[in-house]
């Protein structure tokens, strides 16, 4: 896994996360970054649309009960009267009507609209918190590795390599199962337990991606003139770390956090799709898709959760791209 970490400046370009990001990020320079960034962002219509959709999604997630109360039915409520009992499919094909905006699920007639809306809660909650976890671990580890160098760097870098060598999805699947046995010890059950587990597993396995970038950035920042200047002025380790280096890391952290969220949305959906996500009856997009596969003869069932995933991921990607362009004037657009 060790792409030549010894060649500073190259690090970011050879790391897999660049695949997600689309381009390498060089160390961020310049002053009044916030202003410049805002200036750029304002002009980037596409990114603004992405941001708008994100805000909308968050609002939907937070006010899900309200929205569903107005426009739908409780997400787990059965409407078997909507189902043809011989084929188990919705009467009239989809069941879409003013009452059921997205139609109903086969078998039990649950309101698809409500379930997609509630699915946003799980999806965003897990994706955002898992990202936060990755960012925290990744930043701490990356800064330590980059700043201290030597054996600390070696240890952390190798650890990251080990993490990156695991088949992530398989491992996460197995781990959710294994850790689920600790239910009694953790003192939580049901959705809380599962959400916690998923956040942990997804977040914990993704930190090396952020860690590598932060390490590379720290490494190159450490050699910069302004750090040298601070050092020659008598500044000590902690001061340099917190006042000189960390502020300069905020931009890449922000960018990669924004770009990690959609990956995690996909990750959570994949785990739910494979049957190891949140348990029944709680609605998740991936879980709905995995049920919908069996009922490919009623395509609306896969269409709505699929589109929900697509729109969410796309919005974060658009915004993340825009943010990168805005925060990193050197990256070409």
């Amino acid at each position: 896994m060790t792409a030549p970490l010894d060649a500073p400046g190259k690090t970011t370009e050879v790391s897999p996360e660049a695949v997600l990001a689309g381009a390498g990020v060089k160390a961020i320079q310049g002053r009044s970054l916030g202003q410049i960034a805002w200036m750029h962002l304002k002009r980037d219509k596409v990114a603004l649309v992405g941001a708008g959709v994100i805000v909308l999604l968050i609002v939907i997630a937070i006010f899900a009960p309200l929205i569903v109360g107005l426009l739908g039915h409780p997400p787990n409520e059965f409407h078997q009267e909507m189902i043809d009992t011989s084929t188990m499919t919705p009467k009239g094909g989809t069941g879409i009507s003013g009452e059921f905006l997205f139609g109903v699920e086969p078998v039990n007639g649950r309101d698809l609209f409500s379930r997609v809306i509630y699915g946003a809660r799980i999806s965003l909650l897990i994706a955002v918190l898992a990202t936060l976890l990755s960012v925290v671990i990744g930043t701490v580890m990356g800064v330590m590795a980059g700043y201290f160098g030597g054996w600390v760097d070696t240890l952390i870098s190798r650890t990251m390599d080990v993490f990156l060598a695991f088949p992530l999805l398989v491992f996460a699947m197995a781990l959710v199962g294994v850790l689920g046995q600790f239910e009694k010890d953790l003192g939580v059950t049901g959705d809380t337990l599962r959400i916690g587990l998923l956040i942990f597993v997804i977040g914990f396995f993704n930190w090396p991606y952020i860690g590598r970038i932060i390490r590379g950035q720290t490494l190159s920042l450490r050699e910069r003139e302004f750090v040298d200047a601070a050092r020659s002025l008598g500044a000590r380790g902690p001061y340099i770390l917190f006042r000189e280096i960390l502020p300069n890391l905020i931009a890449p952290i922000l960018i990669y956090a924004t770009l990690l969220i959609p990956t995690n949305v996909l990750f959570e959906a994949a785990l739910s799709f494979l049957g190891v996500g949140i348990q029944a009856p709680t609605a998740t997009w991936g879980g709905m898709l995995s049920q919908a596969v069996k009922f490919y003869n009623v395509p609306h069932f896969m269409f709505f959760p699929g589109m929900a995933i697509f729109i969410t991921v796309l919005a974060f990607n658009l915004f993340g791209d825009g943010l990168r362009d805005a925060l990193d004037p050197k990256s070409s657009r």
Partner: protein
Amino acid sequence: MNKRSALAFAAAGAALSLGLSACGGGGSETKPADGSSAAPAAADAFNAGLEAVFNPSDKKGGVLKMAISEDWDSIDPGDTYYALSWNLVRIYGRSLVTYTPAPGAEGRKLSPDLAENLGESSDGGKTWTYKLRAGLKFEDGTPITSKDVKYAVLRSMDKETLVNGPTYFNDWLDLPKDFKSVYKTPDVNTDSAIETPDDQTIVFHLKKAYGGFDNFAALPGTIPVPKDKDTGVKYREHPVASGPYKFDKVEAGKQYTLVRNEHWDPATDPIRKALPDSYEISLGVNADDLDNRILSGDLHIDLAGSGVQPAALGRVLGDPALKARADNPTGARTWYTSIVSDVAPLDNVECRKAVIYGADRVGLQNAYGGEFAGGDIATGLMPPSIGGWKKLDLYPTGTGDVEKAKAALAACGKPDGFETIMAYRADRPKEKATAESLQQALAKVGIKLELKGYPTGDYFALYAGKPDFVKKNGIGLATNGWGADWNDGFGFMSQIVDSRTIRESGGNYNISIKDKEIDAKIDQIFTETDVAKRDALWGEIDQRVMEQAYVLPSVWSKGVLVRPLGATNVFVTGAFDMYDYLNLGVQ
């Protein structure tokens, strides 16, 4: 029977459609036991293959193509416990007796196979004697003797090596104490259990009398195995054929091909037609693709025999031409939810009743696939095709009776309801749907369920089937299902209602029924020699189970099977409630 634990959405087909049972169970007058030539030919219509042979023919040749979306335990006759496998094994192996290849209830009757006649009992039903036919040979030409049958039975009892098969011989044969297994103690004399006075005769000695021993003799465990070819667990890499076909290619989990066994002599075998030249069996085929290929005629048989997938179901039932090709048998299988009487407050019968009253029975039927693919709403544990079955009417079968449930809760001292945990097999969509339906319905009467999915593979060994785990985790409800090993009370009920079969170490299929009265009735059954009285007692046990509300039955399972294009002698056998695999031919 652990019929197809690996096949998630099993709905076993079964012999008696409801219509048939209405005209009185055994009333079928279809005669010929020896095949289809004289049986009425069926027209192309819905359920045409249930009581008549569709497309009867004696034409030989062709390749019969079968497929299955998963895999089953083993092709080793001594190591298999799937109905589909018990059905299929008969094309390459011959047991002492077997099920008559005939449609409907007739298919449940036994015909002698290796043996000349059905078993002769003596010693009040404790000793059973079979005489083998003359001229029987294995695929390598060596003659089959009664010693090979004895060896096969004994080896199938080694549950450390061959873990999958049933345990009837272990439980009933009178074996010496120092006998461990044919592999560990090959020299121990086992004549107290099975004697082979000559090469044609085999005599079984039981610990206690049992009138239905022929059902044991029909188990694949009596298919002869030559001792010098037995390689323990590896025997499944090439079971030696005694039937008309032998294995040509064995690729575990992928493909089997069978070709004609030249040493099988039709003169020794009155029930088999042996029509196709070969069989091609593909495993691990995508389930939806499998359905589509059967519909298009590219494939003959879905080995699982449990019916089409949801997507194809819509197509088949929605298109009259396709529906005319479908059969919809009811299986000797019940899907139900155990109500665990060890876990408070379900230790109180009124609280258990509240669960049954509160359940949405239509919703549970839908969870299993509705009236065609799921089955009829079950009012008792025992399915209608089992002898001694009587219709019970203890609980309403509508969408949930809130008032009665609340009254029962009040009687139980829990007027405001209670909370408990419901276990289901996580990767079985139908069981998940069952749990969701119960959760919704019971919430209306104040019973709050927390749903917990467990892995299918360990469900009985480590979770729902392990008393310790169930109690410790407060699991009040656990959904599961059971199919008959054969169609009588013993074959269906004995493993799931007798509290003495429960082992603390786990692996129990009886999750909730611990009742002294039922145990006593079972003991009474074993001493009862009259079949009708025995059947009646099983019926009484069924009633007791429901009165005490130990289980909430969902459906007596049904499946929508699609008759193959271009295949002959197609009919549903009452023995396995799927197409009979013994005499299928290719047009």
